[in-house]
């Protein structure tokens, strides 16, 4: 089922809510403008604040296909955009030879045809789809190197890909593009210039509570409130990696799995590894902030 694009900021909020995502107003504005203006949305923020989730929710609630490109160092055109099917091409040449074909230019025209082309995510995102233009998620762009960003420029500004042997493939309708980055390096300005930018921050306590109610409905309200207060408190401590929303969700699930109805000192000690992923951070919290965290958690009730 295909849903129309939202017409206003409020519609966008409703749309994201219906997909189980709790946006704050600035994020809803950024998503709305990106859909409205047909511009890629560049989301930057710490790990685990729900950047990737936005693309998933958009694709699900708009009924669009989700095409995901996970970035890594050394990602190249052959694995991101397209590749020629070399074995088939070679076979075709051999067949032409054995068939006594002497006109190689004709053969060459044939083997660089669409049927020998293997489409990778960026190219297939430009293809029309029954459900409407797909959602293209370019995930963790900061993991690639600079040359790959250059490949992306044409795709992002013109929604087209140029294949030297075949010509230009342009999208009839532009896909919805979401780019995420954890900021392990700065992305080049040329690429950012083509996008709308939004920094996804940690949610405030109210929004985080709402997220928990959405994601872990089986959790008791009191437990969710406690966990949110504790997570907010930990984010204020001087940590190497403060817990993200993903960690908060895991935390509630872990406490439920341990049959704990509320968060106390023992529960916190047992589940600290769910929330904090660095040994230094765990030690720091054990030594300095555990009392404050417990106090914040019980104050929330």
């Amino acid at each position, binding site marked *: 089922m295909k849903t129309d694009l939202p017409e206003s900021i409020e519609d966008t909020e409703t749309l994201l809510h219906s997909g189980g995502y709790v946006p704050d107003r600035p994020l809803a504005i950024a998503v709305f403008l990106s859909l409205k203006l047909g511009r890629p949305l560049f989301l930057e923020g710490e790990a685990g604040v729900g950047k990737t989730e936005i693309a998933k929710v958009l694709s699900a609630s708009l009924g669009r296909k989700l095409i995901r490109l996970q970035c890594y160092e050394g990602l190249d055109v052959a694995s991101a955009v397209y590749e*020629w099917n070399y074995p088939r091409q070679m076979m075709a040449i051999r067949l032409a030879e054995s068939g006594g074909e002497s006109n190689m230019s004709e053969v060459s025209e044939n083997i660089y045809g669409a049927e020998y082309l293997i489409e990778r995510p960026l190219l297939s995102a430009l293809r029309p789809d029954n459900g409407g233009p797909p959602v293209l998620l370019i995930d963790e762009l900061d993991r690639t*190197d600079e040359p790959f960003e250059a490949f992306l420029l044409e795709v992002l500004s013109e929604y087209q890909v140029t294949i030297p042997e075949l010509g230009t493939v342009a999208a009839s309708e532009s896909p919805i593009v979401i780019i995420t980055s954890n900021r392990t390096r700065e992305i080049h300005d040329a690429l950012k210039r083509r996008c709308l930018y939004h920094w996804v921050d940690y949610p405030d306590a109210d929004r985080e509570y709402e997220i928990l109610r959405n994601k872990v409905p089986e959790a008791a309200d009191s437990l969710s409130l406690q966990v949110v207060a504790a997570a907010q408190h930990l984010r204020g401590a001087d940590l*190497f990696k403060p817990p993200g929303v993903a960690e908060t969700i895991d935390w509630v699930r872990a406490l439920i799995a341990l049959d704990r109805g509320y968060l106390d000192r023992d529960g916190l000690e047992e589940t600290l590894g769910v929330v904090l992923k660095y040994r230094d951070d765990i030690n720091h919290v054990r030594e300095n902030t555990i009392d404050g965290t417990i106090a914040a958690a019980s104050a929330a009730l």
Partner: protein
Amino acid sequence: MTKSITSSGALARNVMSFARLLRSSGLPIGPAKILVAIQAMASIDLVRRDDVYWALHSAFVDRHSQSELFGIVFHQFWIVRIGEQDKPFMFDDVIDEAFIECAESLPRRLAGAMAENGLAKKTNKGRESREQPPSVTWSGSERLRSKDFETMSTEENIMARRAMLDFQLPISRVPTRRFQPHASGRRIDMRSTLRKMIRTGASFDLMRKKAVYRHPPLVVLCDISGSMEPYARMLLHFLHTITNDRDRVHTFLFGTRLTNVTHQLIHSDPDVALRKVSAAVEDWSGGTRIGQSLASFNRKWSRRVLGQGAVVLLITDGLDRDGGAGLTEEIERLQKSCRRLIWLNPLLRFDGFEPKSAGIKAILPYVDDFRSVHNLDSLSEFVEALSSLGGARNRTGTNSAGME
């Protein structure tokens, strides 16, 4: 949509004036962004101030560190000029030129703070109202000690560039996952093989390719405390030359606090760059807090600049005001998060050096390459000292060699 784009000529003009003000404050804004901003304003209802704020924000800002400056300029332009905060926007009032002229002079002074270190100390506060308050807290920060450098002579610049030609770190180039055609490469390039088959007809010649090699990112952490003062000018000259010599160089200076000066050093004229650095750094020739400076590097910067296997060059004499407190943990983390940690110590020129200082003792076990310099008067000697490093990542071996 309450307002069509045609009826909002005044709005478009105001957006352009606003963009001009942002630009004069140091945000890189071109015509394309202005067009997007005008489209964005036409797409939303101009009722809520925060909607307008975030719509313009998504069009004009493209990195997190610009947010604060954007907030100040936004306040200055749309709120101070247009009236009380609780009044609705009146976009049809064209903001007069005289105001822009006068407002432009304010952010120009703020532009110096655009360097990320000045703006990086936010994030945790102000979750209630995400619209940035017009705080100007960092503009009046005290300057502990400023520094003047003699200008560089032309001769010095030529010498510096010549010296850099010989400059090689122990890990100078690493293979990337990009490939280029090469007659004796180990990988087969199917694409060009096929093309050749078509061209020459039938003959089956395998074309080959090999990995492209390039410099790994380089991060320099340079001590500028009192004991390092005699070398400061030369070191900065070196840092300036290397920052402009290759891509992916990040430079930090530290004494009692850590300052990222990459942005300032990128200016191609060494004198201008050094003047900017001197203005940005607040703790010239003071004490040293190596542990604390490294801790703030590890917290704030390591994940942003140590990606992709960076080499870290640590330039310090190891004399620590805090007596090496907290240094071990931080230097260990630093060493574990980079490809290779190189320590250059200029103190060793004194005869009879022994690693007695607590700071030195803390750092030594964790460096991959240790290098002492006996005479650090010229840049070429400095480059020579660094280039003569060699060998694999082997702590004990290089340490003992360096300490002899």
